[in-house]
């Protein structure tokens, strides 16, 4: 066995196998694994309102992240791609939040968003507005959207930097010929830039989706999954059940379900969306020739 495979087996395959094994037992974290309960833990997890709403929260964050960051990130990338004054500084500013450790960013926003004493409430007060009584993070109706806003602030930089990199690979000649044909700036973006940026956008969406499904640290710091389970994600649920409540079997079942959901979504996306980007040129070529042969 090659070293890489051995590492993979010890640190990936074996733990995954162990999690599956734990999920079939009722186990408090010590003593022998003896109380086999079959699929009961899975039933418990799937019947738990906290977990089903956690799935919904994860999906809202998957959808919300893409819906907000894609147009915003694309717009900013297109703007920053033009020659302008202070370009470097602007790029840095946009990218800084992404470089910041998630925990630090979380703590900073937690303090900014404190009701009554936080900066956000103070700023709102100056323009005569009032934040919600329980604060943005303490009101169940706003908490998830507040988390989503902070996540957008944090991860917009990654989208922008990826799109900017993608923009560099668009050949200059295409722009020149479009200009010769009298295309407007908007037409150029719509017909040339965005289609050629497709592979980058699709890869970014994939990364964003997987990250959103596994979201843990920002939620843990900002709300701990509360108030009233309004921001629980699958990952915070399984930590809550495992290390906090010592229900390691239930946590194991939740982790397997999270794994399956993420895996299925990833495979589906790969198959239907990413495949055309990953097909190599020779196969594309052979496809083309086959098509021609049919004609």
């Amino acid at each position, binding site marked *: 066995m090659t070293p890489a495979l051995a590492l993979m087996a010890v*640190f*990936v395959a074996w*733990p*995954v*196998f*162990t*999690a599956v094994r734990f999920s079939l037992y009722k186990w*408090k*974290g*010590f*003593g022998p694994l003896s109380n086999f309960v079959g699929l009961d833990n899975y039933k*418990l997890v799937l019947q738990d309102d906290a977990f089903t709403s956690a799935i919904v929260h994860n999906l809202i*964050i998957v959808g919300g*992240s893409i819906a907000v*960051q894609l147009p915003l990130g694309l717009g900013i990338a297109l703007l920053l791609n033009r020659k302008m004054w202070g370009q470097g500084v602007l790029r840095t500013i946009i990218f800084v939040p992404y470089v910041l450790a*998630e925990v630090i960013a979380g703590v900073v926003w937690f*303090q900014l968003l*404190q*009701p009554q*004493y*936080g900066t956000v409430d103070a700023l709102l007060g100056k323009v005569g507005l009032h934040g919600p*009584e*329980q*604060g943005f993070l*303490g009101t*169940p109706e706003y908490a998830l959207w507040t988390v989503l806003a902070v*996540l*957008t602030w944090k991860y917009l930089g*990654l*989208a922008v930097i990826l799109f900017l990199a993608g923009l560099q690979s668009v050949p200059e000649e295409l722009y020149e010929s479009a200009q010769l044909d009298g295309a407007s700036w908007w037409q150029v973006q719509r017909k040339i830039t965005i289609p050629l940026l497709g592979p980058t956008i699709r890869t*970014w969406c994939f*990364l964003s989706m*997987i*990250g*959103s499904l*596994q*979201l*843990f640290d920002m939620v843990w710091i900002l709300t*701990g999954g*509360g*108030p*009233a*389970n309004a921001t629980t994600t*699958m*990952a915070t649920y*399984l*930590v*809550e059940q495992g*290390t*906090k*409540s*010592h229900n*390691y079997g239930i*946590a*194991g079942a939740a*982790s*397997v379900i*999270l*794994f399956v959901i*993420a895996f299925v979504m990833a495979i589906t996306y790969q198959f239907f969306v990413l495949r055309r980007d990953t097909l190599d040129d020779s196969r594309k070529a052979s496809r083309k020739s086959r098509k021609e042969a049919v004609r």
Partner: protein
Amino acid sequence: MARKTRGAAVLAALCAGVLLTTAACGGSDSSDKSSSGGKTTITWWHNSNNDPGKSYYEKVAADFEKTHPNVDIKISAMQHEDMLTKLDAAFQSGDAPDIYMERGGGELADHVEAGLTKDLSKDAADVISKLGGNVAGWQVDGKTYALPFSMGVVGFWYNKSLFAKAGITGTPKTLDEWFSDIDKLKAAGITPVSVGAGDKWPAAHYWYYTALRQCSQDVLQKAVRSLDFSDQCFVKAGDTLKDIIAKKPFNAGFLSTPAQSGPTSASGLLATGKVAMELAGHWEPGVMQGLTADKKGLGEDTGWFPFPSVDGGAGDPAAQLGGGDAWGVSEKAPAVAVDFVKYLLSDEVQTGFAQNDMGLPTNPAATSAVKDPALAQLLQVRDSSPFIQLYFDTAFGTSIGNAMNDSIALLFAGKASSQDVVDATQKAADQEK
């Protein structure tokens, strides 16, 4: 948002896998642990990782080694949360330290069932009789498995000068008096109470107390054993708590307020004079000291009063909610470890423990050494209480306790009824049966 980590699921599984591997390796090296070079080694984990506590414990261990030349005590002083995590891992791998901190209740019962902890009933009989009722939380089926060295009760810590500013004289004895004090504080423009409902357990302490006031001692003690919550007093506890919440005594944003971390936590708000009181345990003065720049907390303004009585409740108004820390000895530990634990509970060590403000001593000979007036008052209430209920989440064990705390937090948010709290607790309890 996009992060390329493999996510908590795999991380958790990974940790579990690593632990399991250590468990597999752990079995073989237990033989070299107890005696090396003719000396018996005892491992001791505690959470007094700051001075004076840290050096006091080092001195205590050195004194014991002097009188027991064949004993070598290996101390690990850890930050509290770190210690809990490491203890969990140590129990998983079956390689627990010889002497460790045991919180009692359901967790202890689980440890006993798994054969991880030593029965001290016979070996420490003299100390156990000295500690009296304090050991109740560490007994399973009449046997004592750990010796409590610090024990406190939960009550209201308040700011004396803010109470005076609102024109409050004396402290409230009944819930109605408490309500009228809330009105007075609000009228004076002072936020009455802070609660760290973001961490859930501080909110849950309110329900624990309303249950303690509504339910008789008999009902509560039966519930801990039978895990049956069908008595109507548990629903009434929720109703009383709803009355408290409806009075709106709490700080803005209490649903996301943490218990003790930072100046905007519940303890921080009390320590910095932003609120007038907070329901908390005997640790509160120490926590507040850490949250103020001058390291004094509320200083002279610190006051304490027990949770008020509730009209019509079946519980004894003098019954208190409390808990503490005890020294447990793991099953595999050498016999001399028990002697060391007994030494830790001796008049001499407990007195020094109290003098260094490390906690509230359980040995009656040491109680007079507690100098802080508010803590001395708390100690008096503790020692004259007919019945001290161990924190419910500890008493019932983590899985029932956390389900209970979760549903109480929902009640604080107006998302659960009194009956919902009982149902959620019963559901988690039924899983345990």
